[in-house]
């Protein structure tokens, strides 16, 4: 894990820099929304990642419940604050984008509300992990809550199809070509990939310090500290 980390970091920086410059300065403006549409280059990736991160957290939680794997529990715990920050980013950029586009910062429609619930789920899991003294009990409680919260993920995904909503449909689907011009969606794709790499980097960083803290009584941590 330690050897991969710098490579992921380099790729993350390259992808994000390239995506941001392309998206902000070179992509053409939207014929209806003008330049405010450039918010898409952080809104869509952060929303996708907030959901992927949640699924990873729930799967890791399930693994730690079933097979009692300690690392899985640490990954699940590390996912919570990262995912929460990504959900905040998706909601905030969505609100900022909504103001010039829909004329309002917030509406209680299905997509926005289910995304807000996702943020509350993250906060709940994070609180359980940090409030319960016993690590094993904390891990179990967090895992159960994140598994129950999994029902929210398909609701977010299909909310724009099941209910009438202000929110537009997905830009990327597996089966069809994007409805945008390539000059618009290629930088978006780069940003999504960049966010995935960014997520893996910060998840690795967090999981590593989590391992150090939990293994602080073992010999190898002592050697590591003494070697510094």
């Amino acid at each position: 894990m330690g050897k991969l980390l710098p490579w992921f970091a380099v790729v993350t920086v390259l992808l994000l820099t390239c995506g941001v410059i392309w998206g902000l300065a070179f992509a053409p403006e939207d014929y209806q929304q003008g330049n405010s549409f450039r918010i898409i280059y952080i809104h869509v990736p952060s929303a996708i990642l907030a959901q992927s991160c949640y699924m990873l957290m729930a799967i890791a939680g399930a693994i730690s419940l079933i097979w009692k794997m300690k690392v899985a529990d640490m990954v699940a715990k590390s996912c919570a604050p990262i995912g929460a920050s990504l959900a905040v980013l998706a909601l905030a950029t969505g609100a900022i984008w909504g103001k010039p586009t829909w004329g309002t910062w917030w509406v209680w429609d299905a997509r926005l509300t289910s995304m807000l619930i996702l943020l509350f789920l993250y906060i709940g899991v994070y609180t359980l992990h940090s409030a319960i003294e016993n690590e094993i009990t904390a891990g179990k409680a967090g895992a159960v809550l994140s598994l129950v919260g999994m029902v929210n993920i398909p609701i977010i995904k299909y909310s724009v199809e099941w209910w009438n909503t202000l929110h537009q449909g997905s830009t990327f689907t597996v089966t069809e070509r994007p409805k945008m011009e390539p000059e618009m969606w290629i930088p978006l794709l780069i940003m999504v990939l960049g966010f995935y790499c960014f997520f893996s980097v910060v998840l690795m960083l967090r999981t590593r310090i989590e391992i150090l803290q939990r293994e602080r009584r073992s010999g190898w941590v002592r050697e590591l500290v003494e070697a510094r």
Partner: protein
Amino acid sequence: MYFDSFADFIAMGGHGLYVWLAYSIALAVVIFNVLTPILRKKQFMVEYQRRLKREQRLGEVNKAESPE
């Protein structure tokens, strides 16, 4: 480059405030996620080293007090 001038780029066709606000929040989230684990590791190392030193000192005191 899509914009004619740097001023146009900053103005974003009148949507500059929205666009730059969104991107600065993104930057804040990135910095938060990178900085917190680094700071936590630093704090862990400092505390651990302090504990090691204290243990060492206690060990020396114990050795000096016990008659051998």
